[in-house]
């Protein structure tokens, strides 16, 4: 068994009296698609914020590629190869799709903040950016401002932006949220194509998608892990059925 890429050890976080993350431990192996599910308010997004460095946990550690990254801020974690997408799409609206992705390529380049040369026509940035757009099926839309893309396209763009960082792990916060059926199917196919190449932690509400994609499923309820394992076992778990799947009908 390969060394896991991302390991959470007894992570805890409270907002006042409310425990939003309560001793969460989990591990994501290289190439594994690990789904994180749970009812609304289970603390899934808060957990993703802590892993990406946007929130600081009260307790516990986050190991990434064998290193304790708990004290690192968001930009340092990103530079270490931890990419993420957002529940509410987060792109740079006025920049073209290509420039959005090139921004990520730039972060990994040898002179990320160079004052010289026009970045827009820099092939060292644009070539890898086009490849990432191609991988998510957006190469035809490279010159469209991100703000003018459809919702599903913006979701795909966010994934291309994550790929541009040459990440070791990608945190995906509900990539299917608000996406129509056809675009949703395309997104699922995209995630399937990335499976095996990147470690992914997928927060998702769409159960069909989760059970179609995930290698491992972890169920979070009120900030606590109530079950974790392969999709079949988790689906059969009585506690899970009661706390979560039961609600779905």
């Amino acid at each position, binding site marked *: 068994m390969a060394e896991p890429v991302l390991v959470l050890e007894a992570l805890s976080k409270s907002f006042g009296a409310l425990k939003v993350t309560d001793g969460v431990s989990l591990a994501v192996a290289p190439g594994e698609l690990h789904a994180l599910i749970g009812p609304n308010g289970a603390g899934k997004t808060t957990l993703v914020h802590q892993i990406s460095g946007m929130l600081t946990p009260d307790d516990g550690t986050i190991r990434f590629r064998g290193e304790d990254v708990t004290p690192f801020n968001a930009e*340092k974690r990103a530079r270490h190869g931890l990419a993420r997408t957002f529940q509410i799409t987060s792109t*740079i609206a006025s920049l073209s799709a290509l420039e959005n992705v090139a921004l990520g390529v730039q972060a990994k380049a040898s002179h990320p903040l160079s004052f010289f040369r026009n970045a827009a026509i820099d092939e060292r940035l644009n070539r890898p950016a086009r490849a990432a757009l191609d991988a998510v099926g957006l190469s035809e839309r490279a010159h469209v401002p991100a703000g003018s893309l459809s919702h599903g396209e913006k979701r795909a763009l966010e994934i291309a932006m994550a790929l541009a960082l040459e990440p070791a792990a990608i945190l995906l916060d509900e990539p299917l949220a608000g996406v129509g059926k056809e675009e949703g199917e395309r997104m699922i196919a995209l995630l399937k194509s990335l499976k095996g190449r990147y470690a992914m932690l997928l927060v998702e509400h769409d159960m069909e998608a989760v059970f179609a994609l995930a290698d491992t499923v972890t169920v979070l309820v009120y900030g606590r892990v109530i079950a974790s394992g392969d999709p079949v076992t988790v689906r059969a778990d009585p506690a899970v059925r009661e706390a979560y799947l039961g609600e779905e009908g």
Partner: protein
Amino acid sequence: MSSATTTAEVTSVAPPRERAKVLLPAILFLLLALAPLAVSIGMPAGWLALLTRALIFAIAALSLDLILGVGGLVSFGHAAFLGIGAYVTGIMITEGRSEALVILPVILGVCALFGAITGAICLRTRGVAFIMITLAFGQMVYFLAQALSAYGGDDGLTLYEKSTLLGFNPFASRTSFYYSVLIALAGAYLLVRGLVASRFGRVLRAARENPIRVSVTGFDVNKVRLVAYVISGMLAGLSGFFLANHTEFVSPAFMSWQRSGELIFMAVLGGVGSLHGAIIGAIAYLIAEDALSHLTEHWRAIFGPMIILFVLFTRGGIVGMLRKLGGRHG
């Protein structure tokens, strides 16, 4: 999809807006280069002095546009840099050091230092707090200048000579003064434009819209903003050098908060973020101010409402209006 077709698409797409971004500044600088000819065909000579003053403020407004329009940081203390540039010039000339190549490095150094220290503090805040703290630092420098009793204090400091450049006197004639400022403005414009288009500039622009996205992409947003703030301050210091030489006088009023407000207005009037808009805005502001003040002594009563109406009814300033007239909007 082959990579050859994607490359072809990239090169074939030349958005009309990109062309406008080259055409308008080119026309602007051409007109400015020809402006002194207007004096030889009958415009009053004072007109060239007014235009020189406008171009000096254009440098300051352009520098402000780098952080305000491009970076999204509303600094209400930008006149402090202008004042520092003017005071360094005034003090050094008074002390017998009038060589521009000695004065300018001192100005750039002092402005960079002041920008780095105040910027590092100001950038810990956002929004209204940022506006207030930049205003506070600006006022601090203002009161410091008032306390400089050896150099005129509240009354200001009169300069009895102008700067020289390697033994030449570029500021001796109106025309050569004008062209000196125009060259500096063109240089500043090309520099800022290059910066905005660079990798650095792309991060600065992206952070204006979505700083969280930029930081989870691996960039230190505050560092990028601080560098922009320092560069912007240094350029404003440069305009202070010309201003002191032009008015042959420096006073604390150069760095009052009203002056900072005027600089913001110049950038907004022209159209924030476009860079050449700040230049057009500064010229329009100074010409309007001059024209109205000749009409009546209560010119501010007309100027104020004009400003309000203009801001209310034009989005994107003068540059935005020109773009609409060109029929390329939408």
